[in-house]
């Protein structure tokens, strides 16, 4: 087990280095000159710009800049934002908890609604509910996330004004109520995928011999479906939901833009628009680490969820 984890971690290193170098490559051929942002009002002064270029290693070749960055990163230093003159670690440290909290709520929405819809449509196959789930999941995947956010804002922010259904449509000032619309928006596509996966695996499991045995020995339909069926069907579903956690953190750019959510997605978007390279790189590293670590955690958890799987 330990050997497996170490081997997987070692496999992740080239992915991490490759992806960050890819990003460096793109940012390095950037036509804009960061010293214009760095210099502020004195940006026209060539001496100021030369000093800044020296300080930020901007005249070094790409691999030297990359080496310097990686060396500083290994000491926990993400660099300083061009635009805000604040340490990137501080900016991301402020933003990450908001992204994590939103992702956790969205995972909850996905798991509850996705699994319930999937189980109902599998157990009552070809019924009205099954057809409804099939159509609803297709539509949910087809709805643009940003547009769903705007529609929810119209429905619950503007049309519902003054009614008990009114919900906050931007920012995080209103406690748990602030989470409702962004979490639904962020979870929409993922919920649809989870519902479909639950339905497929549930149908597969219900065909197995041990289900027939359970029914034959006189267990109630409920016990067969939930104790024998669902428990076995949940293994791929749970791992899929786990993998989504990585995508939810990296995929929240649109949701965070629509709802002015102060998370990493919003920071990286502002940084991209403003050529703020250190923040772009820092946020991407967060997304990469989330993706890599979540994948690893999910792979390891297979063994706990399903004792039949062994890593040797």
């Amino acid at each position, binding site marked *: 087990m330990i050997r497996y984890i170490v081997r997987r971690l070692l496999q992740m290193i*080239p*992915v*991490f280095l*490759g*992806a960050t170098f*890819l*990003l460096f490559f*793109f*940012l390095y*051929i*950037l*036509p804009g000159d960061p010293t214009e942002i760095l210099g502020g009002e004195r940006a026209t002064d060539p001496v100021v710009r030369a000093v800044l270029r020296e300080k930020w290693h901007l005249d070094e070749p790409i691999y030297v800049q990359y080496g310097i960055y990686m060396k500083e990163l290994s000491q926990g230093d993400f660099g300083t934002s061009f635009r805000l003159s604040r340490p990137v670690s501080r900016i991301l440290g402020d933003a990450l908890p908001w992204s994590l909290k939103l992702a956790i709520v969205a995972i909850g929405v996905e798991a509850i609604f996705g699994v319930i819809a999937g189980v109902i449509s599998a157990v009552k196959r070809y019924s009205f509910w099954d057809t409804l789930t*099939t*159509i609803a999941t*297709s*539509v949910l*995947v*087809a*709805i*643009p*996330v*940003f*547009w769903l956010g*705007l*529609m929810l*804002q*119209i429905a619950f922010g*503007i049309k519902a004004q003054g009614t008990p259904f009114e919900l906050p449509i931007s920012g995080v000032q209103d406690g748990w109520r602030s989470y409702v619309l962004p979490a639904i928006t962020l979870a929409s*596509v993922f919920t649809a*995928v989870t519902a479909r996966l639950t339905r*497929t695996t549930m149908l597969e499991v219900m065909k197995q011999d041990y289900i027939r045995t359970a029914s034959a020995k006189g267990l109630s339909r409920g016990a067969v479906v939930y104790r024998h069926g669902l428990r076995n069907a949940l293994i791929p579903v749970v791992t*899929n939901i786990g993998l989504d956690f990585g*995508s939810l953190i*990296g*995929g929240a*750019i*649109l949701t965070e*833009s629509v709802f002015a959510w102060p998370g990493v997605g919003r920071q*990286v*978007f502002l940084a*991209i*628009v403003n*050529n703020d390279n250190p923040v*772009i790189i820092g*946020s*991407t590293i967060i*997304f*990469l680490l989330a*993706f*890599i670590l979540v994948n690893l955690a999910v792979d390891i958890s297979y063994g706990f969820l399903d004792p039949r799987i062994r890593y040797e």
Partner: protein
Amino acid sequence: MQRIDPTQMPVPVPTAASEVSVSLWGDVWLRLKKNRLAIIGLGIILILVLTAILAPLVAPYPPDQQNLGISKLSPNSKHWFGTDVLGRDYFSRVVYGSRISISIGVVAVGITLVIGLITGAIAGYFGGWADAIIMRVADIFFAFPFIVGVLVMITVLGETIPRLPLLFIAIGLFGWASAARIFRSSILQVKNLEYVEAARAMGASHWRILTRHVMPNSLAPVIVFATIATGTVILTEAALSFLGVGVPVGTPAWGLMVSEGKSHMTTEPWLVLFPGLSIVATVLGFILLGDGLRDSMDPRLR
């Protein structure tokens, strides 16, 4: 585009001419015809393609014709979808928007497929070092946050390369890894089958085996992928245009129209409603067709 799970793809169906009288594709079509949702999807796509081609005939007004005297009219008999802030007929703009969505969907998925098919075929067929190198590079692109990659590439190269080609390249570059993975695993299942061995025993070259025997029989999962990916690429373009880094300002593109209508959505909600519904219908068409194709190509469902 990143959200397609390779394990959900059907296993390839080898053609055996002696066994069936209809061709593989005739067989697929026979089963697809019975799938009502897939036919609805196909219908949506056909209507959309016709609309895009015949846009000048379908649209009652030129999409850029401004008339400030009739700014922000609500939908009526002369202007079915109302008019926008500059008094442009919104229905005509939505009609022309289909051209952007369809062309981005087709070209960007085409680029994704070309890169994905070549790399996936080499990795799957030859294995060894080529496989190891190609798939490690694919891992990097797979792990890279898709939308961040596309956004960075567009802002970095936005002034050197025109927007539309840049969108095609960026989406293709950050999306090919899924296609490569799917095609590779499909080829791995086909390449050791008897008829491939027979071709090899008869002295066929690698090129001939790959292009005549292995690739045609590994295509089924890729076709499903391409259909659904066209839908997701249209979503991506809409999202980029919504964020202001997609097509140039003023273009009648659905994502951009939603973005421009956003500030008026309290008083003129149709400015957000109609382009949004067009995106939903279009993407839904590709997803329904893709699902239907998957079901009719999957031999396990026979």
